[in-house]
Every structure is written in C-alpha cells, then in structure tokens.
C-alpha cells in the first residue's frame, strides 16, 4: 500500500476544485492545496482577514505585513482581488457564498461532525478563530487529514470524542489512504490508494464502510 504524502494529498484535493470556485483553505495542512491549483484556471481564494483573490507568497524581502493571510503569513493579491472588513468577510463564509472550504481535523465522524479546534485536555488554552464559521458556512466543507494519528488511532470515527467544531458539516474527507463521502447514511469510500482493499479499511478503521458509486484507485 502506498500512502499519499501530504503533498500528494494536497494535489488530490486540488483536483476536485473546479474553475470559478470560491475557496477558503484553512490554516495548516490545507494551505498546501494552493500549490496545486493550476495557474491557468481562475480559482478565488478567500482569507478570513478580509481578502479575496489571494495570491502566492511574495518573494523573500518583499513581504508586506499588512497583506497577510489567516495564518499571519505574508501573501500577495491577484489582479482582480480586493479587500473588505471582517463583518463582510465572515458574511461571505456564513452567508453560504463560498463554494468550498478545506480544513484540517482532529476527528471527523462518519456523519460529518467535525472536531478540529480544541483537544479538550485539561489546562489546554482553547482557541477557535474562524474554524466554526468556516465549517458550517461553505457550500461544501472538505477535510484533509491523515487517517490515523501517530499513535495509531483512527481519526474518522463513529462519534467524535473531542469537542465539536460543527455538526454534520463535513461532506468529504481526503486522507493519505482513502477518500470518503460523509452524510446521514455514514461514510462511503470514494477512492483508495493502490494495494488497499475495502476489507483492509474496515478492519483498520473498525467502521461500517460502504463503497460509493464509482470507486477508482488513486
């Protein structure tokens, strides 16, 4: 079995983003997706801090610290992009104007519940940022994560044990081993990496998994 590395995962997500889509890429792993969006397609990246039409990082030495993304990294603005204030920015998210947002996760349930903001550990300082707004706002919320933690725990679960970010909000999960569609009927396997079988996945995850209509090897 050839697990995807993080760049391959990003590339896989990018393939599902059509031209013309308005997209928010969450901080962390999802920011990698931008590297695989074809430059000849108009895809509109939104950043929660008031930016639409976000471009790549500037050349070193040309950073403008008043032109940053949600992760507080220096970015650029594409020709045709624009700026707006925070209420307008979150109106874009919460009003259903974004087509896709891509988020990382601690856990996702087979019904699309998301946990990605707080480990819930005693003494941990909670911080939520825009995660809850993004999770419930976009027309489609994708999650991108390794299927298992380093300790071997499956992150796709029957029910989240971490504090929730949103209920039933994730429609698709991209992992290093498979792609899943989630919903009221549970998780359906859309794709698996070469050498992996549905039975393998069922055993390793402990989940009741079915195949989505079209299954293809990545």
């Amino acid at each position, binding site marked *: 079995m050839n697990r995807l590395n993080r760049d391959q995962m990003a590339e896989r997500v990018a393939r599902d983003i059509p031209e013309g889509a308005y997209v928010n890429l969450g901080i962390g792993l999802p920011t990698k997706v931008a590297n695989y969006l074809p430059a000849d397609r*108009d895809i*509109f990246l939104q950043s929660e801090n008031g930016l639409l*039409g976000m471009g790549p990082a500037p050349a070193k030495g040309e950073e403008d610290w008043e032109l940053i993304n949600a992760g507080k990294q220096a970015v650029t603005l594409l*020709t*045709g992009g*624009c700026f*707006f204030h925070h*209420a307008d920015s979150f*109106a874009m998210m919460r009003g259903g*104007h974004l087509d896709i947002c891509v988020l990382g996760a601690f856990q996702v349930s087979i019904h699309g519940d998301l946990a990605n903001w707080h480990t819930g550990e005693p003494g941990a300082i909670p911080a939520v940022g825009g995660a809850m707004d993004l999770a419930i706002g976009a027309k489609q919320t994708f999650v991108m994560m390794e299927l298992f933690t380093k300790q071997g725990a499956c992150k796709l679960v029957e029910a989240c044990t971490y504090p929730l970010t949103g209920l039933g909000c994730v429609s698709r999960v991209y992992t290093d081993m498979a792609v899943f569609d989630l919903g009221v009927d549970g998780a359906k396997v859309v794709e698996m990496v070469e050498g992996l079988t549905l039975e393998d996945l069922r055993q390793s995850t402990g989940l009741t998994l079915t195949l989505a209509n079209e299954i293809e090897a990545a």
Partner: protein
Amino acid sequence: MIDKTVPTVEAAVAEISDGASVMIGGFGTAGMPDELIDALIARGVGDLTIINNNAGNGEHGVAALIREGRVRKIICSFPRQSDSHHFDAAFRAGKIELELVPQGNLAARIHAAGAGLGAIFTPTGFGTQLAEGKETRLIDGRHYVLEYPIQADFALIKAEQGDRWGNLVYRKTARNFGPIMAMAARTTIAQVRHIVPLGALDPEVIVTPGIFVQRVVESAPALAAVA
C-alpha cells in the same frame, strides 16, 4: 478564465422564470436598473415577488412590471408616491400583495440574508401596526421585534463599473441597496455603465466583491448617455 460579463440584457435575465423572487436595486431613480427591468418585462415571465424600496412610479421600471401584471407580491417600504398609479390601481383591485417593511428593517433583513443570520431582533416598529403578530423581546431595557432575513432568487442592480470577475463600484447615491441585494440573492445580475478590464478597479475601493455577482452587462451606450 472566468468571465461573468454577458453581451446583452436579454442574456443577463434569461434564467429568470415564472414565480421567481427578484430584488431590484434603486432608491427613486438613482441606482434603478432600468434596462434589466425592461428586459425582464420583455421576457414575459410573471407571478414574481419583487423586493424594492418603492413600488414604481410613472410608466417605467417597477411600475411597468406592475402595469403588465407580472407582480404577485411586492416587499417594499414606500409604495405610495406621487406617480405610483399602477401600484395603487393593482393594490386597490386586490391584484397585488403588499408586505410593507420599514426601510431600515428592509435593509437589515436583506443584509441578514446575505450574512447568513437566521433572524434578528430589530429596534424598529415595536408597538406599531407593522409589528403586529410578531415576536418581541425586551433586551437590556429596550424593546425589539424579531424579523427574518429576506432572500431572493435574483437581484437586478445597477453599478458604475464592473469587471469580468463581477467586482463592482457604484456612483454617489445610486449605491443604495445594490451592495446588500448582491449579497442576498442567489444570482445577482449587475447592469454597469462601463465594463472595465480586470485590475482597473483599485482593490481598496471595490464596494461589491465579485463573489456576490454572477452576471455583468454593460448598459447600451446610447441609453447610458441619456441616463
């Protein structure tokens, strides 16, 4: 390449069908998308719900839509105007339904739809006829009325300049309802005086980001010169 510009007003309104809800920008004549309304009339669809500040006056625009019998219901704040005889006649004949909304509630409800709120407690209208039957609440010593968002299938708005990504800027008080209607409609169609190349609009001064706009059409130059 994404290009939201369309060549004609007919093409711009081609998806509007019977029974649609349509927001129409403008306050008085300022910001009224006359050519889009004319195209909508020419398209011949009816049973429309119109959201506009007024209910038309004279023989053009919303008044003409009403005269032609295309409007089932209008949501507005100020239907009674000096020359609003087409609305007056249709209303008195029971041929049009009126939802009268204080102008600030109209603006706030449209904004709430665009911003994804489920409902808002607004200070306007408490204790008046226009709040009858509505839920009210005393919050921090002040009375509020619960009002729900107003969404629409389409918004027809007028702007000064637009580009192929749908970014818009407006001119003077013609801005009025345009920016918030663009946020609240599933499909926003903007009539602009000038289509400009991408990048011609300063990113700091774009009033309506393209995400809120689906079609951009340039006004016919001859008419624009008169307007």
